[in-house]
């Protein structure tokens, strides 16, 4: 089980601020694929990054149930 924090447009697409996934998702890349397949509107975004424990993560990075995982849609601060 992994827990995903959602913000901005991805929070709105998914319809909730936290998502718990029981699916067999081992890596950042697999999570991206899963989210894009499950929520096609996420695929339409300019970009999708994943943060693990508050750091941008590469596709190969492994995910565990204790990680703080967040979806990062295109940022627009400032």
């Amino acid at each position, binding site marked *: 089980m992994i827990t995903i*924090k959602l*913000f*901005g*447009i991805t*929070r*709105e697409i998914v319809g909730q601020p936290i998502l718990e996934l029981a699916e067999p998702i081992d890596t950042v890349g697999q999570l991206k694929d899963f989210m894009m397949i499950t929520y096609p509107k996420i695929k*339409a*975004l*300019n970009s999708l990054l994943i*943060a693990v424990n*508050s*750091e*941008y993560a590469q596709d190969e990075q492994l995910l565990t149930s204790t990680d703080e995982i*967040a979806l*990062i*849609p*295109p*940022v*627009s*601060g*400032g």
Partner: protein
Amino acid sequence: MELVLVTNKPLDTQAIIKSVESPDGGAVNVFIGTVRNATKGKAVLKLEFEAYEPMATKELTKIVKRAKSKWPILKVVVHHRTGVMQIGEVPVVIAVATAHRGAGFEACQFIIDTLKETVPIWKKEFFKDGEVWVAAHP
């Protein structure tokens, strides 16, 4: 004064500027972002900023560190506000004190440019006929 801050309270520009003053500084460059009444010719009613706060603070801290490694910065403060803001309100203030002015301009611009690229903060524009998450779509 926190050097890096993401807060839902109004920013205190004057206090931020005051806090970077130092006797060995000759120049302070300040960038103040303000909510504009239009985007691409379309009237904006208000903005809302949402942040992944702990990571945003972490990324801002990294940007400040990178800026300090590139320019001889004496003091630097970066504050970003979240929540709903009306036209004219201030979502971001950056103040950079340097001995000489060139470095201050460059460092301040680097910080705001990089902030807009990497810091997990999202802006929603509200129009009369709808709302849009900025930069989300091609």
